[in-house]
């Protein structure tokens, strides 16, 4: 593509900074001097994709290797896609501006189900046949990883290889195998068969799925020597794992525009609705000095003045006090501010609050997830009402006048009583504020209540549960709204139809591939963006394919049903999920990994929290 013409077209669309490339930290290599070109694709906008830590880690990790050049690709926004199609511009990588079609690997990260149409659309925009079975050369290998790879059956027809678990090691092994196969003149089919033998590599075309008369899966049978189950990969020693010294620093403002420092992987909690809490087991921490020195390097190389600690639950880091002291020893001098997302209510000490206050006064957010103790016990969110109220009291005393609370609607066993509990809890927090003798005069309190709709996910104890219907979601939302009687409580929620579709794809099977293709033909892309999402088109697509979406979202699954993801092994056993599901229905909690081992199976790697002294 002629650069001059392309750049003129940039100026005809919104935010050309999304497409221009050339950012500080972006890697330019000589394409004639590398063996493998890898197009790392994020199936959403530049601003969303550039905020994603996994992409930053793998981008740098691949580019460390002299024989690999990894470049970035994002989904062009609707205006630029139109311009590209009109002018015959194929999807291109930001660094070289070469067409994605020139690349050996085209890798997607699957962060949420609602990005599936974008994945397929990007393949189409690249000028490639969208189906794996129609791409026969040992070239343009389409790979995908990320959390949704745990059940990516709905897009299995389009992808050649899924990477299960953490990619730092397994991705490079597959790239090496590709080089070797290429050198020896092997075919794509031969390459895929060899790749399937590497742990963590799932080649969907090597598995045949058969169905029962009732529509459920009968069996998933491997062929051509592929293993019966594919086990996820993890990095066992976090201190020695690769971490970038540099980030690509965007010119335009992105969603999370700051340095990000990972502190540990996994989560000890075992909240029964949370997929991340099971997918990333076992918990593996980095040590405080490694974290502090990596964070400092990043701030100095990027010029960012803010660093955020990343993990699923920051306050569960065992050496948080030591880490904060360590970080605060240089952040002040370097004029870097620290942000600590994902704090839990139950171990939120006044000391911690004063440290955060020292850093920067920002909003306080907590996630009680459910309105009554009974339902919090069902979901194993081990937080009491007293803890929630005490924390708010501490926060108000510390000068905060607003808190934000996250809840879920439609959790298993939820009744109207539980919904009323959400409004009651918010009211109690308002009352605490007005009961404070020394509250700031003339300042009102704002309790934000954000309610999302529960979506049952694979690899959680709730993977067997039905999702409530769209009509019921709306009824419960209306009921909850009627329970809130004060303006001090502001209620907001997610759109019910997006959650419904997410529920369908989260636990879908391969037959949904046809629906994705049909919906894309009708123009469904950027489904996670409210201004683009169109449920009617999706429902048309389902009906054209003769598929009832509620079969996937609203159906109770028996414990002995073969689930579409049963041949994938995330080191947490199905027996464990069944045990946990039964406990949920008895409203019985399970202590976290540090208090007692619940025998989930994640100790098989011989590392992590499973081997800490209790």
């Amino acid at each position, binding site marked *: 593509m002629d650069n001059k013409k392309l750049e003129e077209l940039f*100026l005809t669309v919104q935010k050309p900074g999304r497409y221009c490339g050339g950012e500080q930290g972006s890697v330019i290599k000589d394409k004639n001097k590398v063996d493998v070109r890898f197009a790392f694709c994020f199936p959403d906008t530049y601003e969303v994709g550039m905020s994603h830590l996994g992409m930053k880690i793998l981008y740098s990790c691949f580019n460390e290797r002299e024989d690999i050049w990894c470049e970035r690709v994002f989904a062009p926004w609707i205006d630029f896609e139109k311009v590209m199609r009109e002018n015959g511009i194929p999807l291109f990588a930001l660094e070289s501006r070469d067409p994605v079609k020139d690349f050996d690997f085209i890798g997607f990260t699957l962060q949420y189900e609602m990005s599936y149409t974008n994945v397929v659309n990007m393949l189409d925009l690249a000028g490639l046949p969208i189906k794996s079975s129609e791409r026969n050369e040992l070239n343009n290998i389409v790979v995908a990883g990320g959390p949704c790879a745990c059940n990516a059956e709905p897009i299995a027809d389009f992808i050649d290889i899924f990477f299960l678990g953490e990619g730092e090691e397994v991705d490079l092994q597959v790239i090496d195998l590709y080089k070797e196969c290429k050198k020896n003149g092997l075919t794509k089919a031969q390459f895929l068969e060899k790749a399937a033998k590497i742990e963590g590599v799932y080649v969907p075309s090597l598995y045949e799925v058969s169905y029962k008369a009732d529509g459920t899966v009968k069996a998933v049978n491997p062929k051509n020597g592929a293993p019966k189950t594919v086990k996820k990969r993890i990095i066992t020693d976090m201190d020695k794992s690769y971490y970038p010294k540099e980030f690509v620093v965007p*010119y335009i403002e992105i969603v999370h*525009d700051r340095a990000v420092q990972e502190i540990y992987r996994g989560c000890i909690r075992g909240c029964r609705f949370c997929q991340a809490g099971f997918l990333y087991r076992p918990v593996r921490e980095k040590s405080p000095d490694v974290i502090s020195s990596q964070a400092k390097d990043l701030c100095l190389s990027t010029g960012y003045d803010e660093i955020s600690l990343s993990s699923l639950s920051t306050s569960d880091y065992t050496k948080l006090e030591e880490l904060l002291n360590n970080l605060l020893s240089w952040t002040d001098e370097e004029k870097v501010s620290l942000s600590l997302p994902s704090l839990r209510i139950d171990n939120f000490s006044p000391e911690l609050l004063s440290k955060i206050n020292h850093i920067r006064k920002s909003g306080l957010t907590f996630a009680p997830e459910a309105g009554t103790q009974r339902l919090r016990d069902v979901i194993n969110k081990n937080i009491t009402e007293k803890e929630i109220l005490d924390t708010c009291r501490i926060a108000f005393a510390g000068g905060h006048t607003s808190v934000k609370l996250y809840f879920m609607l439609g959790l298993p066993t939820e009744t109207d009583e539980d919904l009323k509990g959400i409004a009651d809890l918010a009211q109690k927090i308002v009352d605490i504020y007005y009961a404070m003798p020394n509250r700031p005069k003339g300042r009102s309190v704002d309790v934000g209540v954000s309610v999302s709709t529960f979506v049952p996910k694979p690899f959680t104890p709730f993977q067997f549960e039905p999702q409530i219907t769209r009509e019921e979601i709306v009824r419960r939302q209306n009921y909850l709204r009627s329970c809130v009687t004060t303006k001090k409580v502001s209620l907001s929620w997610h759109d019910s139809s997006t959650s419904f579709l997410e529920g369908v794809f989260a636990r879908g099977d391969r037959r949904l591939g046809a629906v994705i293709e049909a919906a894309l033909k009708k123009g469904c892309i950027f489904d996670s963006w409210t201004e683009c999402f169109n449920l009617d088109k999706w429902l048309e697509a389902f009906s054209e394919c003769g598929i009832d979406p509620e079969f996937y979202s609203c159906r109770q699954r028996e414990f002995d049903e073969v689930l579409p993801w049963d041949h994938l092994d995330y080191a947490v056993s199905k027996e464990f999920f069944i045990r946990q599901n039964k406990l949920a229905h008895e409203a019985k909690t399970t202590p976290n990994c540090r208090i007692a081992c619940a025998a989930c199976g994640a100790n098989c790697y011989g590392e992590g929290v499973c081997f800490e002294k209790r």
Partner: protein
Amino acid sequence: MKNVRVFFSKKGRLRFVSHLDMNRFFTRVLRKSGLPIWYTEGFNPHPYLTFALPLSLGFESIYEVLDFRLIEDDFPLEEVKNKLSAVLPEYVEIIKVSEPVMKAGKITAAGFSLCFENEKAATEFAAFLATGNVVITKKTKKGDIKVEEVSEKIISVKRSNNEVCLVLPAGNDNLNPSLLVSAFNQKQGREYSVGYTRTALYGQSNLLFE
């Protein structure tokens, strides 16, 4: 405390970066440079940056002006140039570092070079500007459409080969050269491909802004 004025060029891929984003970009560049920058003393300390005049998205420039402050009075200006150059991408070149002479508010005009696809287009454009009937249409901040004849406002026009050099009012009363090209396009009934470069800023009595 010492005020420093940096003159730089902005080219290539950086012309897709807006004025607001340039501010964030230079904040990070200054942090990385290791210069003894003076920070504001509020809750969120940040370097105090002033750009003399915003540049339109899509324009290149060889005369951008940025002011900031150093905490050391006798810090050598040559060192400022070296330290900034070391951390800047290829799209920015530091042309000169000095102490401010004029105030940014005193800017009255700006010079532009418009590069046309060929000499014929450039000649026709220059002729169009001399017709005495150059009617531009622009959207005001309120969203109204304003139509205006601007021949009087054009300070100078010079053409050589396929390039037209203009001096236009800037600062308080701005005239964006792309509006002139739009008017020309409309008259000719086609879209010309033009590359814009800002070449200079002028203060009172048309003295070069320094």
